[in-house]
C-alpha cells in the first residue's frame, strides 16, 4: 500500500499536506481524494476539541482501539492520551496491560468504560443496565457523541489494521521514551 506524499498528493488532498507529513491515515485516504475531502472534517470534529473533555474522549478512543486490537491506533492514542493528561498506568490499563478497576475509580469514568466495552467489545445490544449507568453520569448529547466516537474509532481501527498502516518513527520514539512501546 503506497502512502502518498506531498509530491503525489491529489489536488483535494494538498491542503492536508501543507503542514508537513499528515500521517498514514491521510496519506492512504489521499488515494481517493473526494473521500478524504469528505471524511477529514468529520474526523477532525470527532477527534478534535468538542463539548467533551479531551481526557474523556481519549478514554473512549484508546479503550476501543485496544478492544479491536488496532496496533496503529493504540500506539497513536497512547501518546494522545498522555497529552490529554492520563497517567502512564491509566494508559496501560486501557490497553489491557493492567486491571481497569485499580486505575479508574471515578464512577462516571467506570460507567463510560463499561459502555465502551459494551459498544466495541461485543455485538448486539448493550445491556440496558450499562446504558442506564452511563445516562446517570452523562447528558444525552454526551452519550450520543461518546457512542459515535466509539463507532468512528472502530471504523478507523479496521481501516488501519486491514491496511497495516505504519506508526510513524516519531511516535515510536515517543512511546519508547515513555515505556509504552
Amino acid at each position, binding site marked *: 500500500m503506497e502512502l*502518498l506524499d506531498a*509530491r*503525489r*498528493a*491529489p*489536488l*483535494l488532498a494538498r491542503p492536508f499536506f501543507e503542514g508537513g507529513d499528515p500521517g498514514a491515515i491521510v496519506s492512504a485516504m*489521499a*488515494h*481517493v*481524494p*473526494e*473521500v478524504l*475531502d469528505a471524511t477529514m472534517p468529520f474526523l477532525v470534529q470527532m477527534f478534535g476539541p468538542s463539548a467533551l473533555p479531551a481526557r474523556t474522549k481519549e478514554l473512549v478512543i484508546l479503550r476501543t482501539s485496544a478492544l479491536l486490537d488496532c496496533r496503529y491506533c493504540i500506539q497513536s492514542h497512547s501518546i494522545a492520551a498522555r497529552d490529554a493528561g492520563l497517567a502512564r498506568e491509566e494508559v496501560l490499563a486501557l490497553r489491557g496491560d493492567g486491571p481497569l478497576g485499580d486505575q479508574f475509580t471515578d464512577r462516571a469514568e467506570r460507567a463510560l468504560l463499561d459502555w465502551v466495552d459494551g459498544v466495541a467489545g461485543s455485538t448486539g445490544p448493550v445491556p440496558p443496565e450499562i446504558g442506564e449507568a452511563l445516562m446517570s453520569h452523562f447528558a444525552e448529547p454526551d452519550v450520543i457523541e461518546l457512542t459515535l466516537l466509539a463507532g468512528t474509532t472502530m471504523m478507523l481501527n479496521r481501516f488501519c489494521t486491514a491496511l497495516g498502516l505504519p506508526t510513524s518513527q516519531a511516535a515510536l520514539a515517543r512511546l519508547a521514551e515513555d515505556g509504552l512501546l
Partner: protein
Amino acid sequence: MSEIAEAVGDGVLPGRVWLYANYHCNLTCTYCLTESGPKVAKRELGAQRMLEVAAQARALGFTSLGVTGGEPFLLSYLTETIIEMAEMLPIVVLTNGTLFTRARLEEARGLTGAPVAIQISLDSADPVANDTMRGPENFRRVVAAIDALVARGVRVRIATTADHIDEHELERLCQLHRGLGVADEDHIVRPILRRGRAIDSGLGVDTDLIDLPPELTITADGAYWSPFGPTVHGGRLDTDLLVSRTTSPLDKPANILLRLVQGRARGDDAKLDIR
C-alpha cells in the same frame, strides 16, 4: 442552467471534456506523457462509457469533447463511437496517424462533414528528426494519412510537440502542412512537458498546475485536472493532478474541478500555451 454551464459560459471553466480512450499505443515516443507502448496495460474507457461521458458532458453544459490516449485508433470501435459522440458535441481526436489503413480510411468517410477534427502528431518537417522522436517510418506514414484524410474531406489538425523549434524549422513545417491542405489555424505547436517518459529522456519543461488549463479529463482511473494530468512515470500513474476517483455521474468530478478552480489563486494562466 447548471452551475457548470454557467462557469463554461463565463469562461471560468474550459468547455472541453477530455476522454482517455486507452493507454496502449503502437509507438513508444521518447517524450510520451503516459509511457504508452504496445505492452502497457490498455486501461480502456470502453465505447459505452465514452458515449455516457459525451451525453453527460452535453447535459451539464460543456461544449466540446477531446479523445486521446494511448493511441485511440487501436480500438476497433473508435470511429463508430466518435461518429456517435459527434452527434452530441464537436470532438477532436488525437492520434499518431500511423494506423490509417485502407479499411480505416474507408471508415473515416463517416467523419466527413461531422464536427470532428483528427489531430495528428508531426514533430518535424525533417523525416529523420521526426522519426528519431516518434519511431521508424513515422513521417512517411503520417504524411500519407494526412493526405488521405484531407482528400476524403476530413478535417485534420497537426500538432507539433517540440522542446525547441526555430523559425526556419517552423516555416518548413508550415510549408509542409499547407501543402497537405491543412490550414495555419489547424497547426498547433506545443512544448514537451517534463512528465512521463520525457523525464527519463531529459526532455521538456517543468509544469505548475497554474500552467495547465483546467479541462476535465476522464480516464479509467479517475477524473483529472487536465489531459496532461493522468501521466505515468516508472509504470506508476501520477496522482498529483487527480481530481477524483469518481467519474460518474459526470457532475461529481465537474463540480469538484469547479471548486478547485474557484479556490485557485489568480495568476497568469496557460503561460506555456499548452493545447
